[in-house]
């Protein structure tokens, strides 16, 4: 055995456990989901699963509820992530300033991340509830009518976004803050010496240097938000009408309540494809480090 092929063999042996884990935990489930999506497979049905061809996917194309849930998901992800990013960014800068007491505040601000999403949903459900919610109590204190936070189309969406923002803004802050802390001081000094104003330093130096962190946090949050189901489960069940029915909730009700695994898998597969495509386009468009 030549030295080179021996090295290659060693590499193969060393890498194979990781590959195996990847195949077992990632590739197999996805492949199996594709397999299920091509079959009539209902746990509730007495009939055994049978091949369905593209039936489930053809069904998707004429399913208004599916398109509605896509639209709702898109709205939720866009609104939520944009607000989290702006707010998280601003907070990161506040925490980065060397004011006293901010360290404690910064640590406290991480609490929402550590809370279970289901609990967050429950807490906001109670706070926004129209009959005994504390927020509506405040609203009535100011002489206003109680607001239908969870039962009016726009307000319900905003309420879900609010809960998500409450929980995940600290995460954005954490990442941006860490990135800010790792920016070398001398670059800012160079900027000042080169005659840039504070504003120009922010836009020409700080922001571009934070770009990798921003992109990472954006992708993580967008994908995460796209999968969000707990808040819907606790707060609106997708209502009113279908105003807050995000795709994962539709998939959940189809797969786990109606037990129509085939159709749910078809939706899940479509969702994976859409998310992957979106992430790709996104990464190419925004993350391309080439041009300035």
């Amino acid at each position: 055995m030549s030295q080179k092929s021996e090295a290659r063999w060693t590499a193969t042996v060393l890498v194979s456990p990781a590959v195996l884990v990847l195949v077992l935990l990632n590739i197999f489930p996805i492949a199996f989901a594709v397999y299920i999506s091509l079959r009539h497979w209902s746990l509730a049905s007495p009939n055994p699963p049978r091949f369905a061809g593209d039936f489930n996917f053809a069904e998707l194309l004429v399913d208004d509820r599916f398109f509605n849930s896509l639209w709702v998901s898109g709205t939720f992800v866009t609104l939520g992530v944009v607000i989290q990013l702006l707010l998280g960014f601003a907070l990161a800068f506040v925490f980065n300033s060397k004011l006293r007491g901010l360290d404690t505040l910064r640590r406290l601000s991480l609490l929402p991340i550590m809370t279970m999403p289901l609990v967050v949903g429950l807490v906001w459900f109670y706070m926004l509830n129209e009959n005994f919610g504390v927020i509506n109590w405040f609203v009535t204190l100011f002489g206003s009518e109680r607001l239908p936070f969870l039962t009016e189309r726009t307000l319900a969406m905003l309420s879900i976004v609010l809960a998500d923002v409450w929980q995940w803004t600290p995460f954005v802050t954490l990442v941006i803050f860490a990135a800010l802390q790792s920016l070398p001081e001398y670059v800012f000094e160079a900027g000042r010496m080169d005659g840039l104003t504070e504003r120009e330093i922010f836009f020409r130096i700080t922001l571009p240097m934070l770009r990798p962190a921003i992109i990472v946090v954006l992708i993580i949050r967008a994908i995460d938000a796209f999968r969000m189901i707990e808040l819907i489960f606790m707060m609106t069940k997708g209502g009113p009408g279908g105003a807050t029915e995000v795709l994962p909730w539709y998939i959940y009700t189809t797969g786990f309540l109606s037990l129509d695994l085939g159709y749910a898998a078809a939706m899940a597969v479509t969702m994976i494809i859409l998310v992957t495509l979106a992430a790709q386009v996104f990464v190419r468009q925004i993350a391309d480090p080439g041009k300035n």
Partner: protein
Amino acid sequence: MLHFNSSNRLRHLALAAGAVGVLGAATPALADTVLEGETIRILGIGDPVFQVMQKIHGELEEMAGGTVQLDVRPFDVLRQQVLLNAQNDLSNYDLIAVDLPQFGEYMSFLTDLNPLIEANGYDGSDFHDVAWTGAQFDGAQLGVPLQPHPEIMAYRSDIFEKYGLDAPQTHADVLAAGATIQANEPGMSGVCWNAARGTALGQTFIMNMGDFGAAPIDMEKIGDDFNMGNIQPENMRPTIDTEAGAGTAAYLEALMDVSPPGILNMAWDERVRVFAQGGCAMTYIWSGRSAIYELDESAPARGNVGYVPHPSADGSPNRSTLGGWYLSIPTNIDPDRVDLAWKVIEWLTSADMIAEYTKHGNCVSPRKSVSQDAEVAARCPSIPAVDQMSADGFIAGWQRPPVPEIQKIVDALGTEMHQVLSGDKSSADALAEAHRLVDREMQKAGYY
């Protein structure tokens, strides 16, 4: 070294054996208990009755003289676990909790209890008829009632008296009383009910459709009721886009005007709590949940509540939907454990135990003997009321047909009707769409 190690291990074994011997010597005292030192494995639901069992778990094991392994799951998880457990060669549980409408779905993997009933000379006649026969399919008894209770109407007798109103018997009564009270009683709305999207509203729809004497699928009608014990493929056609369906939708739309704020997000727990605190004059309620205010001394509703059967549409008989939990034995249970499982069923559904549960927040009694117990009645006023409804034949289970597709029907209705109540869709369109969805599902399942 090796030698030393193995001799050491031997010594441990000897010690362990000694310990077993000591334990063994202690067991004879348990010989006349239900479990005789054995372990029973129960898969339960996070509903009041099983929560009570969890609460008194220590006493329960003491009474049983063995280990009670009680796994309590939320509704959806329980269903998945039951379905998955059914695929095992040997069941992981001796007993499983089955909701009344689930029998259709689980039928093929539940043990027929009749041979056990005969062998043990068991008498089921103390149970309410509808509760006992609700678990009968093709002559097989698939479960024993543990916590079956109907969805009925609870109303504030004090408030009704104040405005000179009679107990609501019909939809019209409900709407009229609701309007009167809402207009005159500050901070109090008319009716609390399940209008949250999905399962909650879907169930409301079919139960209220039952008020019209109609079921969501085309079952065989027997008198005022339907034949649930023998549902054939041709009975699976939806009957949603019908006059009864339209009537139901119209009633729900009318209810919106006498409902509390946030009704579109209200479900099981919340409607009772809002009612308990005086937010509504009436509420639709699973009778067992009345414990929420009957056992809460600070609740304004406590002691001021009257119970009537589900109000009917004009001209139809009153029918309250029976639901709730049974104990069943899966068919893939280890044959050696069947007798033990049966003994535990007998014990957990005994009159003593049913009475015991009422002490801890489960206001349900499917047994006539318990329902007539004055102490129980004082604790849970809904129990004698339900007992009377049962005697009057006002309770039925066909509103939620025990077919595997029931959840799909409920989901389709709960989703479509929510759009109607939110003002996004006409009820005609929603009914047609729900009908179409269910029809498609039935065809997909190959019934016709």
